[in-house]
């Protein structure tokens, strides 16, 4: 059987299985088992069991439960609410201040949580109703919240980065750190876009009632004081990696300890909260790692049948310009993310694209940062995007069609920043090079 039949057949079957509603891990297991039966017969079954064992015992993946646990502790202890009220007091009297607050909070939440869904769900319940009550434009409000929430997987810590780096076999620390500058640039671009839009059409952000915004200097100092403990967590996660003191997995564990300390400082810690956070983290971790473990064999099968190697040769013969291939790869990921879950796409794409990246001579950190941003956008591209669904969960009265319409301008801004990173690779590679 020729390589392209195997590759196209495998991918089509897998995507079809996803669309039927099969759990993603079951779809991978079914296709992998069928593939192994065809290639090796029954004697190949041991390979499936071994690939699950290898993925399940991968130390790098232990950062996933730790990052989730850190976010859960901060969320359940109400520490995040404190951050919200403190930041609210610090932002001055600017037109469209709720939009500005959304973006600033997103950056901070991004540095404390690795999951866009969690941030979107939280802001849809807290910020969005306030924005609507104050007469802010619903579409721009939703767009700002969804775009802001999407910064979480880009700014470290990030669960997506752990999975990408593990699958692509590159430094987790470097890929984590690579997200800092693009994440901040995205936040700045969102802010500029919103400010320009509001200045062109002031109806998008009405004048807020004065007395609510009168905050004394003392109150502002207290707000700053309340935010200081959160810098402990940011230091324990990002700082320890940058200083070379801890590996990403170790820094994730110290981040959990930091979250416990912050909750205690804010007098919001209890054993009940810790117990609930553990349960939630264990549940989500199992959900994610079972998929990763079940999919591992898919990439190996493609390699064993020679499909990946042949694809690399074919791609090289297509065009001499690697940037055309880069555009095509990004386009495929972008389109697939509109319909399929990001983790599933990642598990299919990474083993196929990895050898192509090496052959084309791209800097792996730069390339996988672009893929990371692309996958993150996948969370807000209609019709299927987990981040949008998480928002809808927090604001059930909003029609999905309105949510869909709200995100497109911000998706365009994401693409713009990706273009900037393609033109100026140092934006993604400068910081990791210092490690």
């Amino acid at each position, binding site marked *: 059987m020729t390589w392209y039949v195997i590759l196209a057949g495998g991918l089509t079957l897998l995507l079809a299985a*996803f*669309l*039927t*509603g*099969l*759990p*993603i*891990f*079951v779809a991978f*297991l*079914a296709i992998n*088992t069928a593939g192994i039966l065809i290639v090796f017969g029954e004697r190949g*079954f*041991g390979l*499936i*069991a*071994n690939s*699950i*064992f290898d993925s*399940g*015992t*991968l*130390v790098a*993946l*232990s950062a996933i*439960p*730790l990052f989730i*646990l850190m976010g859960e502790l901060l969320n359940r202890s109400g520490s995040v609410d404190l951050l919200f009220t403190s930041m609210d007091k610090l932002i001055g009297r600017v037109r469209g201040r709720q939009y500005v607050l959304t973006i600033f909070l997103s950056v901070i939440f991004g540095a404390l949580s690795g999951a866009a869904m969690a941030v979107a769900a939280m802001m849809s319940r807290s910020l969005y109703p306030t924005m609507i009550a104050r007469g802010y434009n619903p579409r721009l409000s939703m767009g700002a919240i969804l775009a802001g929430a999407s910064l979480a997987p880009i700014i470290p810590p990030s669960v997506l980065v752990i999975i990408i780096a593990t699958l692509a076999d590159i430094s987790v620390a470097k890929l984590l750190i690579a997200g800092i500058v693009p994440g901040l640039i995205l936040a700045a671009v969102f802010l500029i876009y919103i400010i320009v839009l509001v200045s062109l059409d002031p109806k998008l952000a009405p004048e807020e009632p004065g007395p609510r915004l009168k905050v004394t200097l003392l109150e502002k100092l207290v707000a700053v004081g309340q935010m200081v403990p959160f810098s402990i967590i940011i230091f324990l996660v990002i700082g*320890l990696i940058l200083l070379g*003191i*801890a590996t990403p*997995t*170790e820094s*994730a*564990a*110290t981040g*959990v*300890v930091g979250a416990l300390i912050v909750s205690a400082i804010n007098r919001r810690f209890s054993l009940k909260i810790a*117990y609930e956070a*553990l*349960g939630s*983290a*264990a*549940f989500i*971790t*199992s*959900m*994610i*790692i*079972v*998929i990763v*473990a*079940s999919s591992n064999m898919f990439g190996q099968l493609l390699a064993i049948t020679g499909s990946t190697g042949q694809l690399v040769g074919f791609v090289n013969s297509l065009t001499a310009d690697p940037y055309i291939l880069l555009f095509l790869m990004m386009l495929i990921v972008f389109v697939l993310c509109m*319909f*399929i*879950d990001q*983790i*599933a796409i990642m598990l299919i794409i990474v083993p196929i694209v990895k050898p192509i990246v090496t052959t084309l001579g791209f800097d792996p950190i730069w390339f996988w940062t672009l893929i990371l941003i692309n996958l993150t956008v996948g969370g807000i591209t209609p*019709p*299927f995007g987990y981040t949008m669904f998480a928002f809808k969960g927090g604001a059930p009265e909003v029609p999905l069609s309105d949510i869909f319409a709200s995100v497109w301008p911000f998706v365009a801004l994401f693409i713009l920043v990706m273009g900037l990173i393609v033109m100026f690779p140092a934006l993604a590679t400068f910081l990791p090079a210092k490690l």
Partner: protein
Amino acid sequence: MTTGLNARAILAPLLRAHDAVTTFAFELSKLCLVVIVFSFSYEVVARYFFAAPVWWANEVVSYALCVGVFLAMPEVTRRHGHVAVTVIPELLPPRYRNILLSCIQFVGFLACAAVAWMSLNQNISQYVREALIIAAVRPIPKVYISAWITFGFLSSALYFLRNLDWRVPAPSDGERDIRL
């Protein structure tokens, strides 16, 4: 009818036992998470404050991760928590959605049972060969860790089976003309 009731009466305690094992396993998976946090935090403190790195942190974390993930897996299956793209099933009328969901549960059962069987064969082979985890500083028998993979998939297979519902609701008037 009587046979059905008898079967249900016999099965009920078994199903309760299965649920109890799942709940207990999920509690243990939380403990595994605590072990991971403690091991890595201890490692960082021991290495940088006391210049005394420990040999066991990576190994313990690796084992705790695998054991914890597969101990929690049946609970995820019980709560229908696995990630799936549900757009198409949600668009279907209830009658056809029910048929599709039953098929999904059945395929889930087959896939998990097949992997449990493959993993069990590996466990037996590892036990007989006294296979060790050779990458470890102090190797331990591989079956100590891999057995939990078998547990996770076997128990999940049983939940997929338990969630099966082949009873198809009668079509409503509005659905009669719809074809799959």
